């Protein structure tokens, strides 16, 4: 099958790429655009390691086709820090040791950022349910959840 020419916005910048219909958005990000922060854990929507926001909605990029992106906008983990300055969630994850191997971390950060944008003051239960589609095989989740809740409190305090 011939490749399609797609114009999309990636992390705020206009991007063009050629895409085979069977490539997922995750394939496009990693293999065509060299944005390898989004990870492939399962390719079936179960692990959340590939989380991105698509037109502002949190989705699994492994369950989106690259060709669906025509005229659409995606934000990835690569856009979370401003230059050298980490997002408060990133900083907190480091300080609170909310990661071990780090494979799940980009997905958790993208998902947690989407949570705090929608709900700046989540309860622990709300945070756990929101992040239920992100799997971590190392940390046991507690440190992640605590880091998210502490960041939420810090961000509310600094406003």
């Amino acid at each position, binding site marked *: *099958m011939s490749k399609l020419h797609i114009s999309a916005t990636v992390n705020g910048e206009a991007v063009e790429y050629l895409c085979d219909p069977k490539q997922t958005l995750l394939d496009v990000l990693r293999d065509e655009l060299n944005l390898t922060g989004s990870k492939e854990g399962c390719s079936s*929507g179960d692990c959340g390691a590939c989380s991105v926001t698509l037109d502002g909605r949190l989705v699994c990029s*492994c369950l989106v*086709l690259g*060709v669906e992106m025509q005229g659409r906008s995606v934000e990835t983990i690569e856009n979370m820090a401003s230059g050298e300055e980490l997002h408060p969630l990133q900083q907190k994850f480091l300080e609170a040791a909310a990661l071990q191997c780090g494979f799940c971390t980009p997905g958790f950060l993208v998902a947690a950022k989407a949570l705090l944008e929608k709900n700046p003051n989540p309860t622990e239960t709300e945070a756990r349910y929101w992040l239920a589609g992100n799997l971590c095989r190392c940390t046991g989740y507690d440190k992640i959840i605590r880091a998210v809740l502490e960041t939420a409190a810090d961000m509310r305090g600094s406003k």
Partner: protein
Amino acid sequence: MSGFQYEAPVSVDEAVGLLAGAKGLAKVLAGGTDLLVQLRTGAVQPDMVVDVKRIDELRQISGNAASGFVIGAAVSGSEIGEHAALVKAWPGVVEGMELIGSTQIQGRATPGGNLCNASPAGDCTPGLVAAGAICVVAGPKGRREIPVEQVPVGPGKTSLAKGEFVVALKLPPRAKNSGDAYLRMIPRTEMDIAIVGAGVDLTLDASGTCTHARVALGAVAPTVLLVDAAAKALIGSKIDDAALAKLAAAASAACKPISDKRGTIEYRTKVAGVLARRAAVIARDRARSNG
């Protein structure tokens, strides 16, 4: 994944033309949360994929409680959950949709996809069946409307003909003193497939007597079941313990489940009665506070 042609029509007619004219297998793509998994495993190998998310009519919720809501087939779970008037009038329908998957899956999954994937365990479909929702189907011969329960005909199979696809789901006008609810049983607390799903919709009169009820069960037969005997157990009663016991017995009696690693036939049969009863109590309490 094998190769396929990708199309993203912007009108219903264009989509019908593509689906009807396709050589080989054409598949509709809505949120892709079932289809992309099936493409990857090779379970489905289409020659053409028709993305229906650029058709405005499929992407909007219109109408209101009094006139009846029309939910575009490709509206996402997140969008349904954010629609305050729909949540107020049809909390059970919304619950079924919102139970699907994680936040990420909610951002994409659609009611049309849940219905047309035709998994017996789909969580959105029983609530729609209980609600008496009508499915608007477009095809080469124009449009037709059928009850939602007539869409799935077996696991993974629908009654839709070549060239046809689902445009919208129409909910009936909402009578006052009505309430609905959907409950499911899964072995985990999130991210699993239902062992049983139970949707109940009912209406009470001024004295609290049930005048209308529909009960639907998921995951206990090859397709979602509309259980008339269970509805009859409620109609004419005040939805007291005696009526609820009859409802539970009728729900269990209707089950034709399979045994698998999630639950045995005996377990599913028993749980179907328990869930139908609990859903009826929630629906009743909602109806009472919804005058």
